[in-house]
């Protein structure tokens, strides 16, 4: 279980409160107006922003002060998920060993992950030579190699076209279900939330509300969310 225990996040004069528990293996969306603090919340879980009060814990273990790379999670950003000067195989290798010291077994694992995401032919290419969709798949393949129980998606596929985005979400859904990952996804698109996440956290008015079933939240949104979602 991922727990945000009376968490208070401050950035300048902006404050966000969260008191939330997410079950192991669940998929949860975070939606809310621009500037409400969706990405701020994710940054805190990932360890890029130190909370001014409260605790973050995973399976009962306090991870509030862990460095980002030591937390039991992987994160995908909207862009810059790959180092453009390293090959795809090296980028994936970083998921297994941050020192890039790879054993033969590691290389087999990388080859398998490349095959799973349809990138076998691109192992020795560099990211700029790949399409946006292929880059996203490579980044996703690396999160699987990292083998961490939590996956955070910060509008990860927002830069892709609609068809490619839903293809990526399907692939992510399949892979995370197989690996039993706990997934948290920031999105702008209520349809993504509906398609991918049974539960949704609404972030409005400085509060990250506990998750509600996505369908009912979208069907009858609270007033602050209604303005954002439109009619």
């Amino acid at each position, binding site marked *: 279980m991922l727990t945000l225990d009376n968490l208070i996040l401050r950035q300048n004069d902006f404050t966000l409160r969260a008191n939330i528990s997410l079950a192991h293996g669940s998929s949860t969306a975070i939606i809310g107006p621009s500037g409400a603090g969706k990405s701020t919340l994710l940054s805190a879980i*990932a*360890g*890029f922003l130190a909370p001014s009060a409260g605790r973050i814990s995973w399976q009962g273990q306090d991870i509030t*002060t862990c*460095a*980002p*790379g*030591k937390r039991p999670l*992987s*994160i995908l*950003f909207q862009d*810059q*998920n*790959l*180092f*453009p*000067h*390293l090959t795809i195989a*090296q980028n994936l290798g*970083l*998921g297994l060993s*941050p*020192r*890039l010291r790879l054993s033969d077994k590691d290389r087999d694992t990388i080859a398998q992950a490349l095959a799973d995401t349809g990138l076998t032919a691109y192992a020795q290419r*560099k990211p*700029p030579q790949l399409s946006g969709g292929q880059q996203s798949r490579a980044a996703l393949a690396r999160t699987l190699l*990292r083998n961490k129980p939590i996956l955070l998606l910060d509008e990860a596929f927002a830069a892709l076209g609609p068809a490619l985005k839903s293809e990526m979400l399907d692939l992510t859904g399949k892979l995370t279900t197989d690996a039993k990952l706990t997934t948290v996804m920031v999105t702008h698109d209520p349809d993504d939330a509906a398609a991918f996440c049974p539960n949704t956290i609404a972030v409005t008015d400085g509060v990250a509300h506990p998750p509600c079933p996505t369908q009912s939240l979208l069907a009858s949104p609270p007033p602050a969310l209604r303005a954002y979602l439109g009619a």
Partner: protein
Amino acid sequence: MADRIRSLIPAALAAALLAALVLGTLTAVTIRAGGLGGLSARDLSAIWFTLWQAALSALLSCACAVPLARALSRRRFPGRKLLIALLGAPFILPVIAAVMGLIAIFGRSGSVNDLLQWLGLPTLSIYGAHGVILAHVFFNLPLATRMVLHGWQAIPSERMRLAASLNFPAASIRRHLEYPMLRSTLPGAFLAIFLVCLTSFAVALTLGGGPRATTVELAIYQAFRFDFDLARAAALALVQVAICIAALLVSRVISVAPNFGAGLDRPSILGLAPRTIWPDALCISAASLFLLTPIAVVMMRGVSGLAGLPTTIWQATTTSLWLALASTALTLAIALPLALAAPRHRWAEAAGMLPLTASALVTGTGLFLIARPYVNPTQLALPVTLISNAALCVPFALRILIPQVRGLQMDYDRLAASLDLHGITRLRYVTVPRLARPIGFSAGLAAAFSMGDLGVITLFSDGQTQTLPLALYQLMGAYRLDQAASAATLLITLSFGLFMAFDRMGHYADPR
């Protein structure tokens, strides 16, 4: 938290090293000087000369740069790009070799005086205040031109298009577009050149001297070498530090950012340039002639004698090459950790800029005073030159590296942190590959500077330890001008060679 502190250790060490060097020498100088009472009238006139020659050099460089930059910005001709690239060359051109070229053109038997004689006009001498200023303009006109040209190119072409569509006459373009740009660019250019000329040593050593053309740097050298009056040298060094700090403070206050709003990077329009080409053509030809012939003349005279250079010159060359390479390594070892820490920790950048307050001769004097009780300072000629050259290059390396580091951290810090990449691995797989070009460029500048520098070594050398610039200076002093031309050719070639080698290495190592 412990990781974060550990990652700052290299930067802290580099900062401590620079602080110890700059503040340590300053302390040594202050103690030895025992006040400014020992300064004579001659020293006061050196202070006055330092200030007014720097101001006049900066003024003339800026005044000539404006028409030249305007001509370069609004005309297109074959070789334009090469010419603009060559404007960056004086930074890596060894001062002593360039002075040799200027003497060949403007000296007693130079072509300018030949022409004057033929016309029946009185000849002029390059030695004295006007020679110092001429050389400073030679070195800094290109710098000013690049800064002003950059200003012209930064006027969004949308503004120019608007001006064209409103049928602005030339006077209105000047008033609404060019003057505001110049108002924001020229103070910066003036101050940059003023600062460089304040600490001018090699030019003053070769072309100046005497009561009316001695800079403070040269006065330190003379107090040292001729009078061996260490207290006076130290007092002068204090004055030099005060002048540098005052100038740096002023430049912080005055620097103004141009404000033209954003453009959309549309290609520039040239249609606004006046039809008559000859003023621009004249301007560009005159500047090219002034900047290129001195070097061309030296190299043409020197190239045939290269093989006949005595072995002492080749020994000095080997020494200089080692010195340049070691000093470059030290510059990078100090500058890189500071640059990596600078975006988050202001002290790192401040420490890196400390050497700007101390000139070569000030550092040299301080180190001499510190070393003298323990060892014979002449034995330390090379290590001291190495350290002082490396320290003087750090501010320039930082100015190149910090903006790139900022970009790198903005783009990839979160990713690297989320993958737990740190320490040597991060340096090897992320930092160094991504920064290969700026690292190569700063290494090139540091190597060329150290190869061609004639500064601290003049204080410490006993005549036995020689660098190539020092050997060249002595050949010039002995009027062995053919050998001097060959040594200058060698020096210019090696300085440019080192710069290009490091710069190319940076490009080659860049995996993009």
